[in-house]
């Protein structure tokens, strides 16, 4: 088997796929859910329900506000208890709809039959994109970009490669792996729908070499789906970054400041592809997702099908509660996830995992002088110079930051991972990048 990869940088964290063999289990519906109206990139959705309203599973409760925005649907049936600001993972508050759960009544339009619907011949591209928009589908790898925007290709551009991102390069996370094994057909049909929506005949499913069972299974399946090819990839972080996935599979590198479509590629996460199948073929909007709950000391780590809005506390209880030696709790993976301050926050569309790190892995080492070893430069997959960007950012030299392409940084964390002096490189680079982007935006005005 040939394993492709990208050429610049990358690091090799231990992949720790503790839950790769654990089948997806539906999590019990909680007593209340809190659904934020800003679960995606772009403008927060506008809430259209009021306190006291009765809602059903799959009912629209917030409308997309503008082109780059997404609909939000209720994940439970019950009564709207409160509409107001609720603290999210960062400790800052955001608008959210809190629903008191009563039963589990689904909207009648949703097809709950278990059989797989394969016929997509009568569907037109516009129909597919509309259904994706109505269902409120966003990128489920964690980026939460509204998928309908990605599928609405401008007329002057052409897609010649649909790429399904089933890489899951973050250590510990296995949600996409299980989706591939347990919903392989749905994934294939979802891919076909994407191909039709962007009028493209070729699709590639990128899978890393630590998921050989998924590679084998999907390769067998792909023989039934013309145009779809499985591409095995070398195990290297951040292979799951969309630019590096495109580079590895097609050999084309997206230029600085441009989008994947500029090199003819449309990239979607594997979970998103399955959600597209469910939305188009089963009329099911996005209101639940697979979340990996794991950690070195966790008693029963696993992968769960969770309703959006479920408090993370419920997931933690399901795996045996917080271990004694808990040091840090992360929403997402260890390389790009966010450390959270409390378990009282809800699962959102982009929550791919809950990772509980023990004390031994939770702390940063003592910061030492930069020894100019250059390991950060070797590790950076974008070919930047992290030590330099970090130094400029700490001195607030925004002009030099812009000259040195800080906006190309994908915040993958390879630089910090490889630094022997425990320097908080990415903290400063991120600050510099945000400041420079603010300056660039204000210049355009």
């Amino acid at each position: 088997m040939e394993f492709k990869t990208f050429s610049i940088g990358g690091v090799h964290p231990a992949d720790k796929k503790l839950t790769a063999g654990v089948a997806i289990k539906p999590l019990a519906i909680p007593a209340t859910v809190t659904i934020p109206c800003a679960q995606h990139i772009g403008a927060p959705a506008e809430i259209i329900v009021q306190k006291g309203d009765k809602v059903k599973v799959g009912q629209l409760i917030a409308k997309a506000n503008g082109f780059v925005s997404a609909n939000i649907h209720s994940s439970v049936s019950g009564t709207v208890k409160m509409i107001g600001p609720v603290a999210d993972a960062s400790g800052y508050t955001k608008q959210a709809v809190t629903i008191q759960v009563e039963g589990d009544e689904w909207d009648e339009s949703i097809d709950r039959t278990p059989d797989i619907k394969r016929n997509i011949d009568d569907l037109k591209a516009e129909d597919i994109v509309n259904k994706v928009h109505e269902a409120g589908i966003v990128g489920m790898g964690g980026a939460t970009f509204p998928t309908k925007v990605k599928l609405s290709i401008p007329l002057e551009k052409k897609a010649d490669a649909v790429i399904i991102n089933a890489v899951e390069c973050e250590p510990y996370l296995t949600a996409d792996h299980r989706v591939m094994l347990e919903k392989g057909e749905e994934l294939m049909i979802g891919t076909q729908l994407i191909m039709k929506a962007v009028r493209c005949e070729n699709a590639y499913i990128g899978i890393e070499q630590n998921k050989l069972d998924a590679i084998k299974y999907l390769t067998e399946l792909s023989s039934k789906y013309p145009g779809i090819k499985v591409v095995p990839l070398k195990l290297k972080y951040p292979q799951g970054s969309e630019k590096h996935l495109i580079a590895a599979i097609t050999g084309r590198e997206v230029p600085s400041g441009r989008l994947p479509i500029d090199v003819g590629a449309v990239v979607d996460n594997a979970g998103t592809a399955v959600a597209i199948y469910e939305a188009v073929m089963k009329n099911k909007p996005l209101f639940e997702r697979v979340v990996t709950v794991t950690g070195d000391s966790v008693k029963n780590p696993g992968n769960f099908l969770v309703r959006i809005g479920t408090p993370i506390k419920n997931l933690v209880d399901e795996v045996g509660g917080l271990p004694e030696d808990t040091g840090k709790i992360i929403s997402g993976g260890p390389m790009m996830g966010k450390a959270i301050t409390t378990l009282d926050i809800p699962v959102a569309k982009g929550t791919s995992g809950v990772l509980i790190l023990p004390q031994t892995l939770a702390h940063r080492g003592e910061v030492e002088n930069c020894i100019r070893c250059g390991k950060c430069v070797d590790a950076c997959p974008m070919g930047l110079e992290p030590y330099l960007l970090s130094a400029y950012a700490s001195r607030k030299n925004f002009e030099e930051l812009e000259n040195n392409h800080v906006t190309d940084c994908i915040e993958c964390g390879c630089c910090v991972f490889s630094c022997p002096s425990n320097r908080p490189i990415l903290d400063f680079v991120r600050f510099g990048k945000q400041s420079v982007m603010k300056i660039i935006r204000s210049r355009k005005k």
Partner: protein
Amino acid sequence: MSNLLTISPSPHAKGKDTVKSLMGGVLIALAPAFLVSLYFFGIGALITTLVSVISCVLFEWLITKFILKQTPHICDLSAVLTGVLLAFNLPSNISPFIVMFGALIAIGVGKMSFGGLGQNPFNPALVGRVFLLISFPVQMTGAWPKPIEARWQYLDAVTGATPMSYSELGKVNLMDMFLGGVGGSLGEVAALALILGGVYLIVKRIITWHIPVSILLTVLIITSIAYLTDPTKFASPLYHLLGGGLLLGAIFMATDYVTSPMSSTGKLIYGFGIGLLTVIIRLWGSYPEGMSFAILIMNALTPIINKYVKPTRFGVVKTK
């Protein structure tokens, strides 16, 4: 610490490299060369190395604590490494006081005066060595202990010439130079031991191949041209590669993190410069050995190499 949850921005995972593990790795790579130097130069090698290491560590500790008023970090092993490398640049019969003075200059001037680890523009061990060379030229260049014979002698060791000295140029047996058993400073005599150390460093990803390979290739090419032009006047390329401090410098001194460029292309240019300067000084300069000066000069050029030679960026050159 408290029982509160820890919060920090991403990433929340860390690779296994630490400053201590990297310095320790280099020390391990130097072990074969050290054992060979003990075998050939005996007591002198042991005492010189010990004095150098202890002085370097002591001076770093004293300067950090009492002059800079900061917490000393001697456990990161960087002072130990400077001590070993300084010793490897000295003959085994040198007075311990000179060694201590060299350590003071190497650490005090070469490293701490710039702010400590990571801030110095010049390789500290070479700063110490060149200072000693200029201050004590007789002890540093005149009397090289004879290997094996001088094993149990120290300051009064019986001496002989080195392969690079004018009287011996081109005359010493290549195999002797490869396995050790020729005159020279502690660390430069056994090419095989040094090469083994270099392979270890590259395999363990402590250094990359760019600097040693570019130095050795440059020296090989230029000395080959010279040799082919006039074999009577110039020594053979292999003689140049194995002789003097070339291997020690190419593998251990030039690859010092702090003073070498950050990008791969930058490293190649740096290595080329060192090779070129070394050959020029050896063939046409008035010193028999040019490696130390070549490295120090290229150290001075490292900042400008870093400024103008940037690593390959993603998305700039379309592949395929």
